Every structure is written in structure tokens, then in C-alpha cells.
């Protein structure tokens, strides 16, 4: 297994490098350093201020190769925007945020916690709620219960997350005052601020989750081995909870495990609306203020998470499906 992981990680390196390159292009080719400087310096900076800012951030260096000798007459060919960018990311020497003037790595450490206090409970609660519901519906497949539940799922799915948040927040926090509207408390006090976001996140995902799990299970129910099990005399419960469920785990696991690394990135909308100082909030603020160091670091982290997720998924496949081995 270790061999497999190492091989996957090695294969992932070109992808990560590609991601770094693309982000470099996006922000250096598509947005001129002057424009970024102007955004950072606030209202009406002088051209000197702009130049100083650009210089201080190393953005006046050549794009790819620096062939101009410096004061001592040495040529540092790799002292260019591109290579500095790559060095920073690959060696995890994350820079300082332009806007917030803190090291990005510190920012990350601060922001991951709040995001996790929402995403992890939402993730677990979602599975605990949707999977049994889907099993229940699969048991009554073909009956009116099934059709009715399916219709409800489609209705729930047709409501945008934004609507869940706005209506939910308004009704439950403002009108009925069951929950605080906004804000966050670090430490133990956090629970009352994250409860409503968690509930809304689970509610928004209920429709599509139940439908997906139901589809997966009904797919399995049509299989030949179910017919064999019935011919053996296995009960309906036995078929669903033993035979079907274990086979259904395979596609379910793909989706579920793949999303685990992204629990760290947090939900943009939830964090904005409820004032949770998490990773989502960080991302949006960075985008709005063109905080390039934060953005490129976040993108890099994001791509690492994606790769971690797909490796985890493949490993979990081998654990659940005996037909799959590390090949």
C-alpha cells in the first residue's frame, strides 16, 4: 500500500506544478501588477507609491528569466516572478498577505478551525440523516411512499442554498430568535453560532443526498445477486441492509471520501452570511481585494487537497471492493 501511495504522489507532482503554473498565468498575465498595486493602496495613490509597492513585492522583476546582472555583476537567472512564485509554493514558504499584513500560514491556521466547526458536523449529520432515509425509501420502493418521498426530494433540491440561508436565517434567527443571527466565538462558545448554519447546510443537501443514495441502492437492487439472495430465502431487510448496502458503499464512498479534504475549505455562502471567520470568508475577501499572495496560496492548498482526496478515494475503494487491488 505504501508503494501505491508513493506512486500516486509522484504522479501527482506534474499536476501540482501545472496548477502553480496556471495560477501564475492567471494573476500575472491577466492582471497587471500596477492594477493590483492600485487596489491595495486604496484611494488615488501616486505613481511613485505604485512603483514602490510593485518593487517591494517583487513584481517588477522579469516574468520568467532574469538575465540582467545585479549590483555585484552576478546574474541570478532564476530571480524572476515565475520562479519565485514556484519556489514559494513548492517549498511551503507561504508569503505575507498584502491586505491583512499577516503571514498566510498564520491566517490559514486561524481560519481552518472555524470552517471545520461547521463542515465536519454538517458532513457527519448529513450522512446520518440521508442514508437511513434512503434505505427506508428503498425498502418501500415502487409504493406511494417512494414516489411521494422522491417528489419531496426534487422540491427540496430545487431550492437554492442561498434561499435556504436567507429564509432560514430570517425566520429562525430574526423572527423567532431561536439562534443568534451572526458572529462567532472561538472556543467552547462557538456551538451556538454554528448550530443554525449546520442545520441549514444539512437541509439544503437533503434532497439531492437522499435521491442520490436511493438511486445507488435501487441500482444494486436490480442486480442478479439480489435475485439469488431472494431465491435463498433472505428477507427484504437482509437484502437491503446486508447485500445491497455493502455493494452500494462503493459508489457512495467515492463521493463521500472525495469531499473530505474539502471540509477544510469551508462553505463560502454560509460563512459570509453568518459571519464565520473561516477559510471561505478568507477566500472571498482575498478575491475582492485582489490579495494575490493569499489567493495563490489558497489555490495551491486547494489542489493539494484535491489530490489527497482522490488518493484517499482510491484507497477506500480497495478496502470496500474485493475486486479492486493496488494495481
Amino acid at each position, binding site marked *: 500500500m505504501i508503494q501505491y501511495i508513493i506512486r500516486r504522489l509522484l504522479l501527482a507532482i506534474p499536476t501540482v506544478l501545472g496548477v502553480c503554473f496556471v495560477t501564475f498565468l492567471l494573476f500575472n498575465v491577466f492582471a497587471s501588477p500596477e492594477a493590483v498595486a492600485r487596489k491595495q493602496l486604496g484611494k488615488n495613490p501616486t505613481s511613485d507609491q505604485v512603483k514602490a509597492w510593485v518593487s517591494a513585492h517583487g513584481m517588477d522583476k522579469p516574468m520568467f528569466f532574469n538575465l540582467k546582472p545585479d549590483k555585484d555583476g552576478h546574474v541570478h537567472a532564476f530571480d524572476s516572478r515565475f520562479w519565485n512564485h514556484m519556489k514559494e509554493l513548492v517549498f511551503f514558504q507561504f508569503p505575507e498577505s498584502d491586505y491583512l499584513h499577516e503571514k498566510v500560514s498564520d491566517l490559514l491556521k486561524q481560519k481552518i478551525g472555524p470552517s471545520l466547526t461547521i463542515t465536519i458536523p454538517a458532513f457527519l449529520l448529513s450522512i446520518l440523516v440521508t442514508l437511513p432515509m434512503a434505505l427506508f425509501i428503498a425498502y418501500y420502493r*415502487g409504493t406511494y411512499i417512494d414516489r411521494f418521498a422522491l417528489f419531496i426530494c426534487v422540491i427540496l433540491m430545487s431550492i437554492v442554498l442561498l434561499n435556504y440561508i436567507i429564509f432560514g436565517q430570517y425566520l429562525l434567527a430574526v423572527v423567532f430568535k431561536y439562534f443568534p443571527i451572526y458572529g462567532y466565538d472561538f472556543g467552547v462558545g462557538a456551538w451556538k453560532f454554528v448550530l443554525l448554519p449546520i442545520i441549514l447546510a444539512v437541509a439544503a443537501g437533503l434532497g439531492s443526498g437522499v435521491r442520490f443514495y436511493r438511486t445507488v441502492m435501487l441500482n444494486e437492487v436490480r*442486480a*442478479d*445477486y439480489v*435475485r*439469488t*439472495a*431472494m*431465491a*435463498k*430465502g*433472505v*428477507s*427484504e431487510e*437482509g437484502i437491503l441492509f446486508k*447485500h445491497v448496502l*455493502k*455493494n452500494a458503499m462503493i459508489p457512495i464512498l467515492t463521493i463521500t471520501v472525495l469531499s473530505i479534504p474539502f471540509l477544510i475549505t469551508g462553505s463560502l455562502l454560509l460563512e459570509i452570511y453568518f459571519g464565520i471567520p473561516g477559510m471561505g470568508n478568507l477566500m472571498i475577501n482575498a478575491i475582492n481585494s485582489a490579495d494575490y499572495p493569499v489567493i495563490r496560496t489558497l489555490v495551491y492548498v486547494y489542489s493539494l487537497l484535491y489530490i489527497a482526496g482522490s488518493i484517499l478515494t482510491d484507497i477506500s475503494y480497495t478496502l*470496500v*471492493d*474485493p*475486486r479492486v487491488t493496488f494495481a
Partner: protein
Amino acid sequence: MEEVLKIENLKTHFFTGEGPARAVDGVSVSVGKKRTLGLVGESGCGKTVTALSILKLIPSPPGRIVGGSITLSGKEILPLSEVEMRDIRGKLASMIFQEPMTSLNPVFTIGTQIMEAVRIHTDMGRAEAREIAVEYLAKVGIPEARRMMLQYPHQLSGGMKQRVMIAMALCLKPSLLIADEPTTALDVTIQAGILRLIQDLQAESGTAVLLITHDLGIVAEMADEVAVMYAGKIVESGPCISIFSSFVHPYTEGLFKSLPGRTEKGSRLYTIAGSVPSATGFPPGCRFHTRCPLAIEKCSLEEPLLVEVGGDHRCACWVRAGESA
């Protein structure tokens, strides 16, 4: 000879959007202890539906058993509830299917799957059930049975998988084994082994076998009695020897004539004209009359009844029964 299985006038219909499909429309057969009945016919004639009806495994929308009676070892099957049926399935009567590749659950070991069959129907603990599973795996000819218990289905060949299915079906010593095209998906070289296995186990335990197939060669080897099905009805039935030596019904005749072995070298292979009608649109009168070289006017008006043509040999055909145009 006691009758283990007695089907009388069974009717299983499927209610689809295009009207009712009368897949099985008045079938009566019986199988006795230690005997093998071969149920023969082309694809789509209703053989598998008949088999599934015995264990009441017809998918309930859109199918339904609408008439007739099925008796297993004296028990009336059709009035039984689903819970009561579960008791019968696997214990009183077992079924093995055509596709061994997909008929076993891929995520459980074969040992687990056989043990499951045992433990559902008995009070045995795991250790006892395991012993029975090992015993039957050995009986069906799987080498190193105890080690094989831990294998997964995908690690076995098609033939071995089918042997496992047979072990699973027979480990509780059922009175009836229904084998739905058990060798169709297997290599010819493996087929003989499986068929011989079924025969041996039948001799040992006295199980009645309902063998469903479209292969006349297999029928010749295995069956004591034969019933030929066409378009949801039995058109000819009787002892195997009788049918093979002196078939009567024009459809049976067509089947035999189509065998390549019976054709002279160099001449064209015989085919029965036309094609099997769909179950939603059977022709009136005798269902075979549109393809039958002997058809007379009465054939398109009235359905022929099964009449004896000698001994236990029966045939449903107006012309063969002596009617003339």
C-alpha cells in the same frame, strides 16, 4: 412415484403499458422424486417465468400470478404469504440461474454466502454452518474446499462459480432443484461436468430437478420427462425417449429439424419460418399456426387442447389429433 412439484394451469401475466403480456398462459407440468423434467423452448417462450413463479419471485409490478395452482411436496404455494415463502425458498425448493458471473454477491466470500443460506433456515451457529458449507463445496468438486471458503466470487472461474451456486442450492437438501439454463453461459467443455454433477447429487439425495434449457442435447442427456413450451403454453409433453424418437407437434418437429447434426452435409440448415410472437400480441387460435406448415382453418380459430397420443405422451395440435381441414 410421489409428485414433488405439481403445476396446474399456471397463468402469470405482466401488465405493461402496452397491454397484458401473457408470458405463462395455462401451463401444467409435474416432476416426481428423483426425476428430471426438461422444460424446453426458445427464448421468450415463458420457461423462466414459469420457474420464477414456482418460488413466487416474479417482480410484482408489473407481473402477477393470475391463476392456476402450484403444489410443492403437497403444499399449496400460491396462497402463501411472502414470509412463508421465504421459509420455502432455499429449503424446500432451490433455484440456480444462468449467469454465474453476476449471480453471486461480489463483496462477500463464497463461504459467507453458503453459510447465509444455512443459517437463515436453521438454528445453527457459525461453526456448524461452516462445516456444512465446506462439506458441500467438497461435494460439488471444488478442490481445497476449506481454503476456498475465503475466496471471493471474482477469483473463481465460471464453472467453479456455478458449482458454488449448486452447493448453495443443495446444502439444505431441498426436494426440488430448479435449474434455469445452468450451462448456457459456460464453455462446452465445462458444461458436461456441471450436468454430471447435478445428476450425481440428484441420485444421492433424491431431489427432483426442473431443468430449463433450449438445448435439446442437454435434454437428451438429463431429462426423464420433457415438456416443450411455445408462447406461454405447453405444446407437447411426455417421456424423453418418446419425444425424441417420435415427436408429434409440428413445433417440436421444427426444433429437431433445426439441429445441425440432423442436416445432410451441403444442404441448407432448416429454420422454422417466421419468429416468436411477442407476449402482448399472440395470434388467435393455436399460437403456432402462423408459422406452422400443417395449419388448417381450425388452427386459427380455436386453441388446441393437450390430448394423449400414446402412453404419457401428449400433444396440443388439431391436425395431429386427427382433425382435417
